[in-house]
């Protein structure tokens, strides 16, 4: 997902840059303003409809799989996680791969961010850890290994040292 986000951003920014550079290169020519504006109006209308036509399906597709759990899954492994300055209290810390996990995430003091990274430090998923609230984050680990939990919401002077580990074992390994 991160690579896709990067590629889309880069290509669109490059396209925009090429357009701006083209206009700068042509800016020294002098043409009748009304003729330029008239042509520009047509391009603008086309651009507007193109954005709208592309935007509607993109919006619909990206809204089909939201990370908001409507209700608890009875078959899921339940893991509770409580953030506090500057520790994670996670239980249990060993879970099984291939089976859904529900992280019940909260905080004891300030707001923290509960984020799970794999062994290459790729960010897999996250939610906020808030006092007085329990956020349910669903995730299914596809492979066994050691995963790192970092705090992604600034919470004070020890924010960057607030980390923990989760061990994911293959099914039948517990």
């Amino acid at each position, binding site marked *: 997902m991160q690579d896709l986000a990067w590629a889309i*951003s880069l290509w669109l920014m490059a396209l925009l840059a090429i357009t701006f550079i083209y206009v700068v290169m042509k800016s020294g020519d002098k043409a009748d303003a009304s003729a330029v504006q008239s042509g520009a109006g047509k391009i*603008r209308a086309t651009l507007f409809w193109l954005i709208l036509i592309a935007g509607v399906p993109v919006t619909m597709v990206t809204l089909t799989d*939201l990370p908001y759990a409507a209700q608890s899954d009875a078959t899921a492994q339940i893991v509770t996680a409580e953030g506090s300055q500057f520790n994670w209290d996670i239980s249990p810390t060993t879970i099984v791969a291939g089976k859904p996990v529900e992280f019940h995430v909260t905080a004891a003091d*300030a707001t923290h961010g509960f984020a799970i990274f794999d062994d290459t430090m790729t*960010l897999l998923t996250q939610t906020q850890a808030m006092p007085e609230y329990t956020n349910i984050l669903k995730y299914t680990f596809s492979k066994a290994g050691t995963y790192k939990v970092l705090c992604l919401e600034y919470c004070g*002077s020890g924010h960057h040292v607030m980390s923990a580990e989760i061990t994911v074992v293959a099914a039948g390994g517990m």
Partner: protein
Amino acid sequence: MEQIISKGAKQSVLAYLGTACVVLLLLMIFGLTMRAAQAGGLAIPAEIFYQLMTAHGIGMVGIAGMCGAAIMWYFLGQYVKLSTPIFLLNIGLFLIGVVLILGAIFIGGFASAWTFLYPLPAMSGGAWTSGSAVIYLSGVLLIGVGFLLFHLDTGWAILKQYGSLGKALGWPQLFGNSTADAPPPTVVASTMVLIVNVLGLVSGASILVISIVNILVPEFGIDPLLGKNMIFFFGHVFINATIYMSVIAVYEILPRYTGRPWKSSKPFLLAWTCSTLFVVIVYPHHLLMDINMPTWMAVMGQVISYLSGIPVLVVTAFGALAYVHRSGLSWGMPASLLFLAVFGWAAGVIPAIVDGTISVNLVLHNTQWVPGHFHTYLLLGVVPMAMGFMYYISNNEGSGLDRAGLWAFIVGGYGFIFTFLWAGKEGVPRRFAEHLPEWMAVDAMGAAFAALTILGVVIFAISFLSRIGKIAKA
């Protein structure tokens, strides 16, 4: 429109811009220090890092506001009668607020990030005292009060001249049959900013007061999610308003070079009316990882994030392109910086929209992708808008050195933001005082590009500050 501005009013604008120049450079050095520390090239204690981070964040938001206010006030004053004493009161309160904030941070050790996310100010973990937290929040509150007075004055003046906010937004021309000329772009933009920023400032002031009371009387508290909503509503609206104020420089100055007046066409009026609504209701895109928020608000955050891009890209960016295309424009510093600024704003919208997608936000939220996109439209949008205005107001088309500074700014600025975006893609968290060794190479590149950007801004600042006395007397 002809320049009609009194000497006192001009001097007031110069006070804003001179203050902004100096503080901007200082805060950029704070930023460079943080990037150098993350790269492992500079050893500073974590407490100091987070103090610098807090000062950098709140300071830049304030400076963006001051630049935007100066631009808006300068041009709006050519259409409606504004109060110079209130304009000066705003900068007075701002400076007092700055002193309180700097004292709270660097003497009191306060470091809750500029967002002062409730209830963090009251929970320092031993890093700062309650007193310093109260002083910091009071400083921000004072600055907010100054801006509220500033907007109430612009609102009063607009209402006296145009009769209603709807008329000032050009609604009779947009929705009715009025054939009269619509209000000029500056009035339309100022009215939009007035509406959204008053709402944002009231929300911000409320949560600031609540936070202060919470520190003094810990038994008094509010729902943390409600507090978070209030803070992000305020923060989102205020920082966006700085762009919407600053873009007035583009509408007013660029036509003086192209010879093509920027008109309040129907698409323009529709875009600004839509933006008024979008800026107010889009803020839940900051709370997409708060699973307890109502799902409809998260969906609205994503959908409105997408829609918000249309007025920026299709109206302002496209408008700038159409006004410049084959205009015979010669590229002095004001025109160059303003055109660059429009690009920076439009380009920054792209990674922002990408991050506004819920499924993407799940893996980019609070990574360095976030400073990557907001530095694009603030550092490469608002800053060149302000600098373009400074060159314009000092009648300075620029020397060879200024143009060298411009290239340093462009290369440094874009290199800088791409190191952030890249690091965000790689999962590097934002707001970490210490980084893992594998992240440090990109940090070092970011620091080098930041230094180059600062070099560019130093040249801009010297160019402006060396002329400020002469402009003030003119």
